[in-house]
């Protein structure tokens, strides 16, 4: 069996035209993480540029209101560019620079990873092209403009369902043609080996910080860590440090859309079957003939028919639990966090908040629950207004 396995999941199911590029990447990454200079430089950019370490905030009003576990928020929304995505992007771009690549490409769903990549590319003076499903470019116009402002070219993808999965297809196709001078900055813990490992390692700073901060303030580890799961990068980053600590319960909240009993959801771990797509063996939502299903979620960032292979493995072994949260529950949590704590979360992160709102009240007052608040919600204000039936006029 090949390298890059998480149990039976993972692997490198990529076309021959990409194998050399993936091997080059694996080798370069292997040497970079063993190089103290690289590790130090990355830490420096994370701290000086991206605003790390991010705060671990005790949500007192929310805790009192829910009447169960003490709730902490890991404030990834306070990072530069407003989400956890920058952690991985800075790591991959430093790696790209080390490999002598001058151009970068990326896929994006909601636009968070695209914005982060465009940001990093500007920082390092690299040419950047972002592939984004045409459907998503409409849902997230603001992020398209933001990427343009940062000097990146946004290429709308018009194939397939015109969403994140098609953006991934197109980025891989483009990379197959241009890998000699181009680095593919993959945004989640997915794809062919070594990407799921690279992204998880670069995001694991989230869990490491949670552990340190928790030990400092509470003198112990949390009882529960909750994070939202699309491809799974913020969740993998938050969970990874705690995997060897079985007493810490790990809960992933995936997009239940209009309900997992309807066709309108993206709950891969709840409803998916084993398959291969985007270079990895994992769980995917499929139709009767093995076609990848169109998925739905109010959140463009969770709107993916698969999930990172390590999550599939954690689900299979029972080390982590994955539960579906509906659009309605996520929107309620979005509003709840705004009025209760004065924090507007990304609609993706609101799925984790919603799950915490179900889990925390059943826990004891001395228990501790950490929510990974993966991003801020400014980008979602428009779609939430639409969901609750409020018209916001365009400003002239």
């Amino acid at each position, binding site marked *: 069996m090949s390298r890059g396995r998480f149990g039976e999941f993972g692997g490198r199911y990529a076309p*021959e*035209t990409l194998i050399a590029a993936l091997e080059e990447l694996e080798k370069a990454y292997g040497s970079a993480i063993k190089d103290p200079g690289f590790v130090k430089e990355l830490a420096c950019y994370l701290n000086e540029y991206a605003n790390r370490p991010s705060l671990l905030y005790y949500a007192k009003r929310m805790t009192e209101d829910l009447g169960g576990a003490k709730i902490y928020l890991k404030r990834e929304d306070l990072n530069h560019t407003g989400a956890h995505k920058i952690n991985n992007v800075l790591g991959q771009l430093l790696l790209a620079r080390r490999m002598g690549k001058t151009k970068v490409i990326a896929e994006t769903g909601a636009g968070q990873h695209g914005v982060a990549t465009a940001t990093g590319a500007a920082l390092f003076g690299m040419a950047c092209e972002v592939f984004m499903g045409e459907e998503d470019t409409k849902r997230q116009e603001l992020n398209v403009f933001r990427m343009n402002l940062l000097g990146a070219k946004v290429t709308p993808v018009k194939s397939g369902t015109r969403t994140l999965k098609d953006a991934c297809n197109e980025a891989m196709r483009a990379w*197959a043609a241009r890998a000699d001078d181009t680095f593919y900055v993959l945004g989640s813990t997915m794809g062919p080996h070594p990407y799921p490992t690279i992204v998880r390692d670069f995001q694991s700073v989230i869990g490491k910080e949670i552990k340190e901060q928790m030990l400092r303030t509470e003198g112990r580890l949390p009882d529960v860590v909750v994070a939202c799961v699309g491809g799974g990068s913020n969740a993998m980053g938050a969970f990874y440090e705690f995997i060897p600590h079985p007493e810490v319960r790990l809960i992933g909240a995936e997009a239940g859309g209009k309900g997992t009993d309807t066709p309108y959801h993206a709950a891969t771990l709840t409803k998916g079957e*084993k398959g291969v*797509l985007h*270079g990895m063996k994992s769980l995917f939502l499929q139709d009767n003939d093995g076609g990848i299903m169109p998925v739905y979620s109010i959140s463009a960032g969770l709107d993916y028919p698969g999930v990172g292979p390590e999550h599939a493995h954690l689900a299979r072994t029972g080390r982590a639990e994955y539960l579906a949260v509906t659009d309605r529950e996520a929107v309620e949590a979005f509003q709840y966090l705004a009025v209760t704590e004065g924090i507007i979360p990304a609609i993706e992160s609101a799925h984790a908040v919603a799950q915490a709102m179900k889990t925390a009240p059943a826990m004891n007052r001395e228990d501790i629950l950490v929510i990974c608040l993966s991003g801020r919600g400014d980008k979602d204000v428009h779609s939430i207004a639409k969901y609750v039936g409020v018209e916001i006029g365009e400003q002239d």
Partner: protein
Amino acid sequence: MVNRIDEKFRMLRKQKQKALITFITAGDPDLLTTAELVLRMEQSGADIVELGIPFSDPIAEGPVIQEANLRALAGGATLVKIFDMVRTLREKTQIPLVFLMYYNSILHFGEEAFFKACAGSGVDGLIVPDLPFEESAELKELTEKYGVYQISMVAPTSCGQRMERITKQAKGFLYCVSSLGVTGMRTDFQTDFDKMFHTLNAFSDVPKCLGFGISSPEQSHQLRQYGDGVIVGSAVVQRVAQGRTEKEKLQSVAAFTKALKESLLD
């Protein structure tokens, strides 16, 4: 039983001829047309036919074949129906048939059931672009048990050692990818074919066919000097797409196939 692919190359080499391998997407626009196209391509000089199995996410394909996939899916093509078509075709032709498909379709069908259906209907080989050498062990036992070849691919970027391993264990023929990127029509090639084929020939005598981007008889005429044949995909699929009636599609593909075959003769 001798695999039809081996038999074909044995014959072609004896006659000092190069193989013409043509590709169409099964079920584009419907399976009756596909079956007719296979027969017409054979009559017009195709030596082996590749049938693309439609999939929602064909990541190794360029726009022409992506659209053919969508048309075939919209037309209701499924693996079960494609196997039925192959079974019917086998009453009329012994041309080697190779499926080009993505691994997910095999996994979803069930690996053993899939190979059983291949052998039972008369499929001779499989090209699975997203199942590279390192992962191909998963199907090896079944390919041997059922006598269905998994056709290996090498790319210009495949490193020496890897190229050697792939070439030495190749069955049927070796699919030599002409250039980087995805399938689709190209006007020129950057690859040093002299060097590539010199290297490959030193590793093994297995038939080698060049594919990706070959779109005209002029190109196939030029490239015929390398290896044992050429694979033409997108340019055929485009003719299927452009024909307004079934008759037009058949005529256009037949004329193109004939021109390609003639271009391979010295």
